[in-house]
Each structure stands twice: as structure tokens, then as C-alpha cells.
């Protein structure tokens, strides 16, 4: 059985229009199970676009995204939604919690949408997740009653609720203070250490350096890849994995 959780083959994302624009330009990439991958690059380099393609939020113009061995280019929109629901967990720069729902209700949302557990099981898991992220006493609070860091941790709990293989995070610390940033990154590190694949887009080189591997994207292409031990390699090595 392959140990690759996420694979991109010749991934291209092009915006067609009066002036065509290529956001992601032929990226090949393999991410192993339990790997913590950071994607960095200047603004507009295509790192978020790559992340959305890897998380099936967007469809590539060319190429293929393979999630846990399953090619996804021929899937319908509903099938892609099912893959997102069961195999991917999303964390965004802003928490994007449903404002009328409590922390616990927000965490339960993906589980209820998947409908694989009983109400009791879902509730137990939701409380367990919140407790593991230090939010035991905030289960019944609404997002507007939480701090920025707490909201982001609730969003992480929500991303983890369906036990996805892959966590995709787009600038998860972009709107947080230093303490919260440290907390969130530590949590993501723990998630990766527990065997899940974590792919994070970040502007912060110090945080990216703490990932197992870092990809630097420029103009939609992988410019370089750094391994955790400090070795730097070319795009060809990125395609092959660490």
C-alpha cells in the first residue's frame, strides 16, 4: 500500500478571459502520510491556488490530484464534495465558523453532514476534540464570545472532526497574535505527528522552517524545496517526495 497521501501530477490552473492568467503552472508533487508540508512564496505566487487544488476546492485546468490513491479529475462536483467531507479538513486564515452556532455545534457540522455516527458519538467526539485543543469550557460559546486564537482552534477541531487523512490550512495564523500563532502551529505539528498529512500555506518563514518540508512557489511553479534537515533541492525532487 502506497504511503503517499496526496499527489499532484502536472497541475495547471489557468484563468481564461480577455487576459489569460496561469495561477499554477505544471506542478508535480507528492506528500507522504504524516508529513507536514509548508508552502511559501510571495503574494500572488499561486500558493493558495495550489492549496485549493490540492484540497479539491478548485478544479485544475490540466493535471490530476490524487487523494489517498484516488484520482479526482473525473469526479463530479458532488463526488468531490464527498471526498472533501471525508478525507480533507480545512482551516482558513479566518475561522469561518457559523456565527449563530456554538463551538460544539460548529465542530459537529461536518460529522452531521457525513452522518456516519450517532448523535451521542458525535457529541462525545466533538467535546473530546474541543478539550484536546484547550476549549473544554468554551463548547457552548458562540464565535463572537471567543478570542481569535480560540476561534481558530475551534476551526481546527472542526477540520479534524471527520478524522480526515489530510489537513489543508491556508494562512491559519495570518490573523493571529504571536501567542495564538505558536499555539496553532504546535497543534498542527501534533496533528502531523499523529499520522495525518498537513499542508499549510504560510507567509512566515520561521514557521515554515518547522515543517518537515517546505515548498517555495514563484509564478505558479515550485522554485525550491527545503527539507527539515536544511537540505535544499530542486523542483524535480519535490515531485518525487522527500
Amino acid at each position, binding site marked *: 500500500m502506497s504511503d503517499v497521501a496526496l499527489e499532484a501530477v502536472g497541475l495547471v490552473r489557468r484563468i481564461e478571459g480577455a487576459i489569460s492568467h496561469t495561477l499554477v503552472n505544471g506542478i508535480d508533487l507528492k506528500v507522504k502520510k504524516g508529513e507536514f508540508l509548508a508552502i511559501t512564496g510571495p503574494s500572488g505566487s499561486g500558493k493558495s491556488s495550489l492549496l485549493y487544488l490540492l484540497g479539491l476546492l478548485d478544479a485544475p485546468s490540466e493535471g490530476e490530484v490524487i487523494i489517498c490513491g484516488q484520482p479526482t479529475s473525473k469526479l463530479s462536483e458532488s463526488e468531490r464534495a464527498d471526498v472533501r467531507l471525508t478525507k480533507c479538513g480545512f482551516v482558513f486564515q479566518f475561522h469561518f465558523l457559523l456565527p449563530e452556532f456554538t463551538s460544539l455545534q460548529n465542530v459537529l*457540522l461536518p460529522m452531521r453532514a457525513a452522518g456516519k455516527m450517532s448523535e451521542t458519538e458525535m457529541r462525545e467526539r466533538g467535546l473530546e476534540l474541543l478539550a484536546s485543543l484547550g476549549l473544554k469550557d468554551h463548547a457552548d460559546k458562540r464565535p463572537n464570545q471567543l478570542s481569535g486564537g480560540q476561534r481558530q482552534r475551534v476551526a481546527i477541531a472542526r477540520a479534524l472532526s471527520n478524522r480526515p487523512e489530510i489537513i489543508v490550512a491556508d494562512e491559519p495564523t495570518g490573523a493571529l497574535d504571536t501567542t495564538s500563532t505558536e499555539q496553532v502551529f504546535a497543534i498542527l505539528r501534533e496533528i502531523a505527528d499523529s499520522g495525518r498529512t498537513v499542508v499549510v500555506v504560510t507567509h512566515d518563514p520561521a514557521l515554515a522552517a518547522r515543517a518537515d518540508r517546505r515548498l517555495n512557489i514563484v509564478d505558479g511553479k515550485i522554485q525550491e524545496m527545503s527539507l527539515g534537515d536544511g537540505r535544499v533541492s530542486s523542483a524535480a525532487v519535490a515531485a518525487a517526495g522527500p
Partner: protein
Amino acid sequence: MSLDLVLVADVGAMTTNLLLDIAWTHVTARVRQTLVGMAGVAIGVGFTIMMAGLMQGSQIDFLRQLVDTMPHITVQDERRSAPAQPADRDYGAVQMSSVANVGDRRGIKYPDTVMRSLRSWLPGDVAPSVKTTAIIDHGGGRIGITLVGIDPRQEVRVSKLVSQMRQGQITDLNHSPNAIIIGQALAEKLALKTGNTVTLIGGEGTEVTSTVVGLFRSGLQRVDEGQVYSLLGFAQLMMGQSGVINELRLRLDNPLIAQKVATQVEAQTGYKSVSWQEANSDLLSSFSVRDFIVLTVMGAMLLTSSFATYNIISTITHEKRQDIAIMKSLGMREYSVRRIFIIEAAIIGVAGMLFGWVLGYALCYGWSKITIYDSFTGTNVPLSIYYSPMHYIVAGGISLLCCTGAAFFPARKATRVHPVEIIRGAS
């Protein structure tokens, strides 16, 4: 049921609960908007029920008067089509001119036998009558009338004349020579009272002095002004045809089957049998037009009320674009997200419908207490309201349909949004 099906049903129920929860949260978070939407639906449903009750009530009231005043079926001494003439039979001519038709003797042949035969199967009763025209002459005023000769003993079984009597009794016809019963409106026109005498001039020029022994009021102006009752023999005298019965008057237990029974009677007797529906076909057809107009107006009311729902769902979907994007990015399918907003509209629709039912009933009750002055009769007439569960079901059903339909389009538009566009925009 297989395990797979059980699981699918379970998953479906859980997802539906989630959608219901989200929808409920949305509508309860916007109390003012939700109340406005519900009020719109409630007013639409309430006034539709009131209008339907009022229109159908007045229609039924009018038809009841019509049916009560007239025989349900009238068998006349004529045929639907002209009988074949000897010239046609003998020569089979395509066209003939200047050949006089052979006339039949007027009246229904063997009326007693026909009535006995009809009574053997008819779901009602039958009575003989003689109908002719005459002129009533009193105090210098001359008015053309329809003189209907009846047998009072049999007439009570086929008409409501007894209950329509305002002065005198139907049996008083037997107590005075050449007695007549006239309509109240005609009496007022000619300043007549019971006991007064008038001159009746028949079609053959016969002039007879008659005594007014009673006054009736049917509620139909044309009948009250133009119809006069007498005994059979007197009408036959005015007609100049003794012993003739030219009309059989039928009353049915269920007036609604009159058309069907009339066809059977005509097939059996060969005489033209006219149901009350056929006799008033122009009026009933005008009712159809009126019904259509009323239905159109009610439909427009319900449709207009659904615009409030459209407005609310449009606002919610606009405000919730970010939530929609997040739900889609988490893996909720587009149609599931769309269902949230349809459910919201349904919640508003159902609540509005329930309030509308209460409002409709209250309006109907209130209107039934209102009386309107009738200048013809000089009395205060209450508004007739017809209470029917069908009004509530139809008004509520159409309203729900309009509400969910109104929500569908903004919901579809909103859920087609690509999550990445919203997430990028927020970032």
C-alpha cells in the same frame, strides 16, 4: 429493508436534521424579517380564505334561492327538435317550401300516466302545472305576467311556495273563485292587497275577474314581479284549453343531479326536460367567469404575498454567502445547502399559513356579522359566508408552493457560488 437502505435512510435523516437546524437558526436569528414574511403570507392566506368564503357564500345563497324558487326540472310540452312532418316522411325531400306543418295538440299527452311512471323511479316528486301568459289589469295599469296553474296539494311536494308565502296560504286558492297568488313586488307595483280583485286577460282574449288571496316572495325579482299562481282549471280557462297540462314540475332530493335526471326524463317521455342548470345556463356560465376572475385575484394575492418570502430569502442568502461557501468547502453538497433556504421559506410559509388560517376564520366570522341594506326589500341582509376546509387547504397549499418557489431561485443562485471566490474575497 436491507442494511444499506437503513443506513442511507439514517444518514438522510441526520442530514435533514442538520439542514433543519441551520434553517431554524437562520430564521430565528432574524425575528423582524421573519415576522414580516410570515405576516405577508398570513395576510395573503387570510384574505384569500375570506374572499373565497364570501364569493362562494353569496353564490351558494343565490343558487339556493334560484333552486328553491324554481322546479328542479321542468318537463315542457315540446320537443328538442321539430317532429318529422308527413311531407318529409313521404317524399324524403331535401327542401320544401309553402307546405304547412301538421300541428300536434298542445299539452303533455296522458300526464297522469307519465307522472305515475316518473314517480316509480324518480328520486323526488312531480306535480302538474299549466303555464300561460296573461295580462293583469288593475287601476289603469296593465302588466304582462306568467300565469302558472297548480294543484296546491301536489305543489307543496315540488316547490317552496308554501314557505315563500308572506300573506295568505297556498290552499286559499281553493276557497275563492278565480283566486290568484301574486308576488309581493307585483302587489306593490299595482298597490294590491289580499282580498283585492283584478282583471286577468288571457291569450284568447278571455277577461276574468280574479281575487288576490295571497302574496309570496321568492327573492328573485323577475319571479316576484312577473309570476302569478292559480288553480289548474283557471289557468286552463285563461289559456283556452280545458284539461291541458303543458308542464310537469319536478323536485329532486338532490338538486345537483338535476341535469342527469332531466336527460333520463327526456329520454323516457320524449318531451323537452329542462333542468334548473340548463334554464340558468347563461347565469351559471357567468358564475364560471366570476370564479375564474376570483381565482385569478386570489392567486395574485398569494403570489404577491410570496414576494416577501423571496425578499427575505434573497437577503439571507446574500448575507450568508460566506457560510454557504464554508458549508460547501466542508463537503456539503450544493443541493443540501440549497435545501436549507427552501426549508427556511417553508418554515416562514407554514407559520404564515397557520396564522393565515386563524386570520381567515376571524375575517369570515367578522364579515358574517355584517349586514347590508337591501334597497329592493328594505331589509338588512347578512353577508353569506361559506366555510369550507377546502378553502384553507387550497389557500395554504398555494401559499406554501409560492413561498418555496420564491425561495428556490435566490437559493439556487447563492449556492452556485464557487467557495474559493468567497474565501479569497474574505481573505
